């Protein structure tokens, strides 16, 4: 039951600190704008409007979900060390795993709520504009579930950083760098090598797996249907066919487990 006591307190703190409001506002605002903006061309293309919306929202979520995950988690261990509450919590009869998992439950709930509100707005707006005919909710549900997996991975990374650096100020800096590397620099680096390689063996064999090894890219590939027109995404689409849905799903499911396990291993060694 200690897990739920921890989760309950973390939720209360997240609400009071406006983390919940911030996450919901970010997701709600961007999904609304993207749904409304993406709604215009779909009538003529005859493509399922929800699929189009889901595609734009995927592009956005690749940046936003890791960011929200890292922002929710960077303070989790470092902040408690600094305030002295960790030593106190550890004097109570509960394990470190319970503390970590309680925090994770609360943070993933905040993330799930924010994503659900965003996607709910998208569904509502689409129905309002196009009616319920020819709508497939599968892309939205897929987007929701993969968002949680992506978020969970970055929550775990955030806890690991928090436990390693032990200072909230430093932790916040490190997670921003992690975010930048994972969602921007990693892809840029791969693209650079891709251009240099000019269609050689790297492009055909190594690149697709390197791409899918990044949870953010696995998430993007899983949610990007083939209708996309941009050059970058069609390139990604081709790469996605090599690694396949299984590879992408594996990456997206293994990352949260690895990251949370790493966080637990680090947290176990933390002397408050």
């Amino acid at each position: 039951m200690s897990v739920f006591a921890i989760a309950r307190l973390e939720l209360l703190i997240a609400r009071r600190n406006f983390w919940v409001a911030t996450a919901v506002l970010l997701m709600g605002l961007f999904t609304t704008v993207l749904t409304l903006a993406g709604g215009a061309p779909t009538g003529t293309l005859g493509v399922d409007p929800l699929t189009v919306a889901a595609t734009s929202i995927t592009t956005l979520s690749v940046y936003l979900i890791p960011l929200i995950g890292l922002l929710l988690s960077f303070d989790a261990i470092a902040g408690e060390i600094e305030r002295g509450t960790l030593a106190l919590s550890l004097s109570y009869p509960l394990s470190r795993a319970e503390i970590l998992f309680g925090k994770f439950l609360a943070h993933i709930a905040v993330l799930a709520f924010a994503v659900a509100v965003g996607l709910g707005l998208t569904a509502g707006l689409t129905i309002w504009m196009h009616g319920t005919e020819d709508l497939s909710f599968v892309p939205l549900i897929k987007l929701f579930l993969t968002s949680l997996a992506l978020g969970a991975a970055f929550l775990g990374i955030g806890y690991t950083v928090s436990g390693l650096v032990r200072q909230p100020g430093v932790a916040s800096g490190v997670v921003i760098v992690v975010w930048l590397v994972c969602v921007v620099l990693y892809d840029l680096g791969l693209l650079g090598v891709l251009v240099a390689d000019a269609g050689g063996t790297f492009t055909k064999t190594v690149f697709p797996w390197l791409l899918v090894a990044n949870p953010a890219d696995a998430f993007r590939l899983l949610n990007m249907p083939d209708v996309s027109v941009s050059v970058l995404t069609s390139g990604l689409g081709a790469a996605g066919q090599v690694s396949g849905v299984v590879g992408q799903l594996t990456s997206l499911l293994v990352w949260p487990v690895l990251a949370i396990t790493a966080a637990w291993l680090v947290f176990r060694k933390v002397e408050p």
Partner: protein
Amino acid sequence: MTTLVIENAVKQHGSVMALSDVSLRVEAGERVALLGHNGAGKTTLIRAVLGLTPLTTGSIRVMGAHPGSRIARNAIGYLPESVAFHGSLTGREQLQHFARLKSVSCGVADDLLDRVGLSDAADRKIRTYSKGMRQRIGLAQALLGRPKLALLDEPTSGLDPVSRHEFYDIVEDLAQGGTAVLHSSHALTELETRTDRIAILSGGKLVANDALSALRNAARLPIKVNVTATAETVEGVAAELGGTRTNCLSVELTCQQHEKVDLLSQITGLGDKIRDVDVTPASLEELYRHYSATTQEGS
């Protein structure tokens, strides 16, 4: 069963001996004050008892169990030296959270808020609390579930004198209920004199561990006797008794416990040459300095 048994505890941080061969027992219902300068090893010892930091050698048992085990943690109430509860929670929310962790009903938490005098402020955010009020929240959570062992790290720092006395009443109640209380402090004040035993740590060594009166006797610190004469007689009094003149009216003398009565009868024998006599036993601060200093010379 002895509530807390520390045997030959050694804690080494690199070349620094934070604790060297410390042995200490605290029985149920006993109150022990753990004294020492900053850096003497008090907090290290408490953290070792909590299982937060492993000992280099030696052993600690809390209710017969290893420190940090569930049995030990269930038995312990801990008040950290400096704790900053999350400012955006109310006192009640914070305390009820700890009650859930200890599997105690929330009603108990509300009663404890009353007990530490926070019932009026219970629903305000902790960030609006004064330092003393935060300390009370800390004390309240340490009392949850009637712990078998209360570890209070510098509990009275930041409390005003009235709160200190209320605090001490609470600790006394706790001890009467069978809780072993170990509280640390960096100075020997009136509060520590109300404990059953005083343990003094200096440079990681336990240099004293006894009741206050026994420590006083063993230290053999001189008693100060201040004799007030008149402006005319002070020269004669000083000549007769020895001692030093402190001003143009008084003479200060020192003596050991066993010489006190003789000295006093000698003084009263002076009749109306003197106006007043003050007898001051060694102060707590002097006693504490005496024990802290003995080891520093030895080491």
